[in-house]
């Protein structure tokens, strides 16, 4: 990265972070909601621990991984909605009149998404520890969870950015939300894959990328070092990131028509 690009990415990230953290109304739900659902589903589904074949851990530990996924979905909304606002207000035109490169715009916005993702993950982990969770893979595992969270923030953030650049409309970006929640619900968030008896559901969950992301984080929390699960999670997160960035780059060309 050249020095000029690095500066540009830095100042755009800085602004994105400032803006994110100055909108408590936007980030508090992204923190509170997943934690609330964690405690509620851990309470309501605790009985699942008695299912034959359920991992021998508390349901709370099992469910903790889901918060990170919900956090990633909020990252999509945040990065995308903010950029869509910039397009609607004309702020993007203001930036376009400077020598800012398109890459700096996308990377800078992602910087904001990553910061929010890391902050969220810290809150979720803290909630997990307060709720009595233990991380089977230890401190190194926590580091790996953070790496995966960052990669997910990049991937889901880039999807939000691509949607914003393509549509130029905050409502359209928000429209992605339900879609991602459908994907979340049709994955292994509530039970492990082999405890899902309904065939069509198991098929959907097997093909659903979210399953692998949840399972990777979950394995680090409840199993320890499950190589294949971790690898699968990172591969899926990487693939989403690559697709998201390609999508953003393509959408950027359509949006920034400057000569």
């Amino acid at each position, binding site marked *: 990265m050249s020095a000029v690009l690095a500066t540009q990415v830095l100042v755009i990230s800085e602004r994105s972070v400032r803006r994110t953290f100055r909108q408590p109304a936007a980030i508090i*739900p992204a923190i509170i909601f997943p934690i*609330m*659902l964690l405690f*509620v*589903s851990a*309470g*309501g*589904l*605790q*009985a*699942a621990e*008695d*299912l*034959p074949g359920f991992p021998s851990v508390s349901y709370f530990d099992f469910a903790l991984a889901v918060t990170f996924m919900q956090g990633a979905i909020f990252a999509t909304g945040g990065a995308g909605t903010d950029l869509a606002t910039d397009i609607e207000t004309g702020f993007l035109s203001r930036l376009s009149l400077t020598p800012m490169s398109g890459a700096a715009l996308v990377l800078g916005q992602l910087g904001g998404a990553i910061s929010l993702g890391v902050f969220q993950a810290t809150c979720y982990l803290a909630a997990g520890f307060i709720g009595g969770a233990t991380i089977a893979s230890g401190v190194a595992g926590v580091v790996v969870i953070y790496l995966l969270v960052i990669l997910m923030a990049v991937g889901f953030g880039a999807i939000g950015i691509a949607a914003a650049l393509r549509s130029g409309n905050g409502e359209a970006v928000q429209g992605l939300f*339900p879609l991602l*929640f*459908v994907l979340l*619900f*049709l994955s292994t968030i*509530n*039970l492990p894959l082999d*405890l*899902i*008896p*309904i065939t*069509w*559901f198991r098929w959907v*969950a097997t093909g659903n990328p979210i399953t692998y992301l949840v399972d990777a984080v979950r394995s680090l929390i409840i199993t320890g070092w499950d190589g294949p699960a971790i690898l699968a999670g990172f591969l899926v997160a990487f693939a989403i990131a690559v697709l998201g960035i390609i999508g953003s780059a393509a959408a950027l060309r359509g949006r920034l028509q400057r000569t």
Partner: protein
Amino acid sequence: MSDFLHWLTAVQGIAVRQSSSFFKNPALVLPSLLFPMLFFAAFAGGLSDLNRIPGFDYTPGYTTFQYVFVLFQSSMFGGIFIGFAVARDFENGFARRLMIATPRRSAIMCGYGLAALVRSAVTIIFVTIVALVAGINVLGSPGQIVLLYVLALTSNILGSLWALGIAFRFQTLSVTPLMQIPFFILLFLAPVYVPIELLSGWIRHVADVNPVTFLLEGGRALMAGTTGPIVTAWLVVLIGGIVLGIWSLTGLRAAEKR
């Protein structure tokens, strides 16, 4: 009498306008149908192994168990979503015009409430068709099933009254989370996934006093043709109706004074 007729015309006018603007907008209709379906698919499909938990004794099976939850969830939220429409009407000034044009303003409340009922009825029919295809077992007598649906529609009124009370007081769309979150919390602090006997710890204590618990458990009993807190469920909607009715009416009074 003519006063009452006038009132009825106003109720009908508001309900018809509200319903037609709702059903003509796919962006509103689709989520209202798809979200209950999503819950149904995710819970009935993804969690059906829970009926293997020792102590799970709901005879009609897990799909039916979850159908009753989705029935009440979609019905209540159908009511709550009408609060969104009212808030929007306040934001764009339409509600103000209504308040000027309608002599008995309770007609406004009833008109919006009626629209919410119509909307929820459509969702319920849709969910029920899907549930029948998915294979629910109806073991209750016809009378019990009628009671079940009346109970569900009554809980729709509770949702409407709550959300209308908020919409009348704040008159802006930015308070929509306040309409949803309390009901959302109540719903999920009830026995959603397993019968109450299988809950333990803090959530059991909460569920024991959560009014929604009685609705769900009562509704499930009606569906299964067994005994359950059916009378308590009716008490819940009765008392809830009175309390939330006052909440909503005082909200309307507050809106009139603004």
